[in-house]
């Protein structure tokens, strides 16, 4: 069996074991979850090391690695088909790492501990499953499995407006995935297995334009199919104007869940577009590439301006995610090797950087029980309204402030840190294709610098108010969750080759597939 199968289903085994642990044995529950996510991480690391970067994947089964391919529902040609290529491997690694770290970030959860960790493990199974699935039905099942635990994790363990945030997240993503379901069925009914001639859910067959039926060739149908998929994915990214669930969900979600949400779930959107829309509908994708690039630009600028206006630190980080995902969209819509590589590398880096930021926000929130940069005008304590929430924390919590500054600088794209390389690659790649969009987008970086430096100034510099003189600095458990991410960010900032090398063959091939497909369709 493929290690990917183990990675997907080990969390499920963990759930079964958790079910038999009495609900008041909190530490046992935590360590069991840590054990299983750790196991997944170890298998992930071994897989990562054994990964052969020269294989290209995308639309050839031979190009995939760690394949499991067995029949599931023979009558309808539904298969259990998983595998990894250069596009999915970095995402799988990122997921395994963040899930393991987030177990430790969840140590402070005391309400219904058992339920929390069961939901968490279910979420991990769904996420890894989505990244490894190569059968469209299987992909959809995993895609939907993520919704339920996320709903509960936000809804039960979230902040004061958790009910609203949870249902909003659920409704948005559910609508998106239902549209996707229609497209999946349409693909299924119009694709035939080359060997048996039966309809098939095999994604690789669907990518073979020669196997697509005549109905699928119509321009209107293809446009509808493209947007059916695209809206489903755009909600996850989240693309403006489908982004409004994100700030709500982030603000209310517990720290670890914000990390997963921003670090992994947002990538599902862009991953889906690259994995599915690009090779299956290359001509339509090419036709609407300007739209993806344009919306990427809108995301960058709009997200950055919104972040600039935020008084809540967590909301600031949430909007910065919207802005940074815009860079991914811009880069991948360029159809240049640099652009696509930069986009996927940006997905990976943003996962690490934003995870750090959310973890750090969680650290200060646990101590101060608020996270306002500036107290809002309707704050209950009248004398605090409009005043700075923190200030001078660098004196009180030096280690914390240092790590926070590192993460902030990484988000800003400071050279020497990983995000710089991916952002630069994305912009360099995008420039030849979308000059105007890229030029405007780059201004987003300036705004980013603005909100980040301003936040640093308001939080860490200046004088420390008396009420924060009792705050303790970051503790060992928190450091344990942050150090690996910081190390990755610095390492990849200096030496990005390990990740870039892992994906470039696959992504260049993907680029070619789309170009060829579009050319064959007469574009």
């Amino acid at each position, binding site marked *: 069996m493929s290690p990917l199968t183990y990675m997907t289903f080990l969390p499920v085994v963990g759930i079964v074991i958790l079910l038999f642990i009495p609900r008041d044995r909190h530490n046992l529950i935590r360590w069991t979850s840590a054990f299983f996510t750790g196991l997944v991480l170890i298998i992930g690391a071994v897989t990562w090391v054994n990964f052969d970067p020269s294989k290209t994947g995308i639309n050839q089964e031979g190009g995939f690695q760690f394949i499991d391919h067995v029949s599931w529902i023979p009558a309808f040609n539904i298969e259990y088909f998983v595998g990894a290529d250069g596009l999915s491997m970095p995402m799988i690694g990122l997921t395994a790492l963040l899930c393991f770290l987030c177990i430790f970030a969840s140590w402070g959860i005391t309400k219904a501990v058992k339920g929390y960790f069961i939901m968490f493990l279910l979420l991990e199974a769904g996420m890894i499953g989505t990244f490894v699935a190569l059968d469209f039905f299987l992909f959809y099942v995993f895609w*939907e499995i993520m919704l339920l635990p996320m709903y509960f994790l936000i809804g039960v363990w979230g902040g004061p407006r958790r009910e609203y945030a949870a249902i909003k997240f659920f409704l948005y993503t559910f609508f998106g995935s239902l549209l996707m*379901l229609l497209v999946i069925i349409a693909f299924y*009914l119009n694709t035939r297995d080359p060997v048996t001639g039966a309809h098939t859910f095999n994604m690789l067959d669907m990518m073979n334009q020669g196997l697509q039926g005549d109905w699928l060739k119509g321009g209107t149908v293809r446009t509808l199919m493209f947007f059916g998929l695209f809206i489903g994915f755009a909600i996850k990214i989240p693309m403006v104007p489908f982004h409004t669930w994100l700030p709500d969900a982030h603000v209310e979600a517990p720290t670890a869940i914000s990390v997963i949400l921003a670090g992994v779930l947002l990538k599902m959107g862009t991953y889906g577009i690259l994995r599915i829309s690009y090779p299956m509908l290359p001509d339509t994708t090419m036709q609407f590439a300007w739209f993806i690039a344009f919306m990427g630009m809108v995301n960058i600028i709009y997200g950055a301006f919104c972040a600039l206006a935020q008084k809540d630190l967590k909301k600031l980080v949430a909007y910065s995610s919207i802005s940074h995902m815009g860079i991914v969209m811009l880069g991948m819509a360029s159809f240049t090797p640099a652009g696509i590589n930069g986009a996927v590398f940006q997905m990976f880096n943003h996962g690490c950087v934003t995870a750090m930021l959310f973890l750090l926000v969680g650290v200060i929130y646990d101590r101060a029980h608020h996270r306002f940069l500036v107290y809002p005008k309707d704050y209950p304590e009248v004398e605090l309204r409009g005043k700075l929430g923190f200030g001078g924390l660098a004196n009180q919590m030096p280690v914390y402030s240092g790590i926070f500054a590192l993460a902030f600088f990484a988000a800003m794209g400071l050279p020497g840190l990983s995000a710089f390389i991916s952002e630069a690659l994305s912009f360099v790649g995008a420039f030849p294709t979308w000059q105007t969009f890229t030029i405007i987008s780059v201004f987003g970086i300036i705004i980013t610098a603005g909100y980040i430096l301003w936040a640093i100034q308001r939080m860490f510099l200046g004088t420390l108010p008396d009420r924060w003189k009792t705050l303790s600095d970051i503790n060992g458990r928190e450091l344990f969750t942050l150090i690996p991410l910081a190390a990755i960010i610095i390492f990849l900032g200096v030496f990005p080759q390990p990740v870039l090398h892992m994906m470039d063959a696959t992504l260049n091939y993907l680029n070619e597939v789309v170009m060829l497909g579009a050319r064959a369709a007469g574009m």
Partner: protein
Amino acid sequence: MPFPLTHLVYFSPELILIIGFVVLMIVDVIRPLRRGAGIVALVILGAAAIAAISAWPGTSQTIFATYAHDPFALFFKVFFCLATMVAVLFSLFTFKTDAEYYLLLVGSALGMSLLSGAHDLILLFLAIEMVSIPSYILAGVYRGKRSSGEAALKYVLYGAVSTGVMLFGMSLLYGLTGSTDFEMIRNHFLQESTSPITLFLAMLFIMAGLGYKIAMVPFHFWCPDVYEGAPTPITAFFSVAPKAAGLAALLRLTVTLLPEGWEAGWDWPVMFTLASAATMTLGNLAAIRQQNLKRLLAYSSIAHAGYILMGFAAACFLGFQAVLFYLVVYLFMNFGAFFAVDIVARKEGSETLRDFRGLGYRAPFTAVVFAIFLFSLVGLPPLAGFIGKFYLFAALIQQHMIPLAIIGILNSGVSLWYYVKIVREMFLRDPLKSEPIPEGVGTKLLLLFLVVPIVVMGVYWSPIIAIAGEAFKLVAP
């Protein structure tokens, strides 16, 4: 035509039910046996189900010249016996002593079994009455309770009108074709031209009568009141069994009388498209504002009838296969949802949304299982409700009926809102009272019996979909 007595063998499930009906009458008279009436009913229904299964796949001929003995009828006989068994099991938690109650359930099962095989307008009508009359009494079985009486009365009044209308439609059909036998009517249509207007009226009236059983919009008005007023086990039974019976009759009638592509006067795919869109949209929109859970589930069951009608609208093999598969899934999830409601209602005395607040902390097992039923009703993978919807949508897309598919999608999205409202109440809010709600072993077992198929069929449904495909074989050519 002579009726060879050997044909009685093919009638064995019905014979068992008839004998069982008589046995239950006797049990009702003998006081010490009365307490065991539920068990007796279970044995009878189980025996009838086994008889139907062992006859599978039938002889595909008409017996007594009016009665089809085909996989379709046998499938539904097993389905009705199973549904009635679940209803009996469910009732054992509520009604301890009323033998006549179980008697009526068995009678209703007999009527539905006859309905599934009816191949003649007269028999069809009689079978529908055989289902309806016990149902009227069952709705009012809480003798002291006003709402139960009101439910029964409403059910009777609406039922009487709609059967009258249907009978009128049947007589028109008889007038058009000179026969009550399905096959003769079909042959008449195939060979001679008919007045389209008369045919339209005849079929519209028949559809109204069966639509009443299905709670198809606009013949659904009785449904929420009756569901709310009737005892919960009966409500659950109504929402599954007679609805399925109506769908079965409608399916056989449509497919047998009017072969595909035969659209003079009665373009049934279009009619079903309209009915489906209206039924699911109204059901879902009305469910949003409901506070009483029985009423909410009543509207939800209207919506599900609309989803099922999507399979009719698609008018293809995949569509009808999807209908049969969906019904099987629907049996488990709808009974399950009503049973979970009843567990809380028995303790709290009512079933408003507030009574479910914090159920996840008061009765964790029930709450989790209830949530699974609800998510299955929404159609989330990996639960069986998703697979059912998947096939319905697949049928629509195969026929390129994209607008109806989009309406279905939007409806599913809307339905998420009110189902999740219940989940929110159970898990996201703290309980108003801390005392736990008792979940006995029996309760848990029945919940498990209903939830395990939902989960298993969500992951592995090959056998059931294969049976559903096999079952869509009707006597008619």
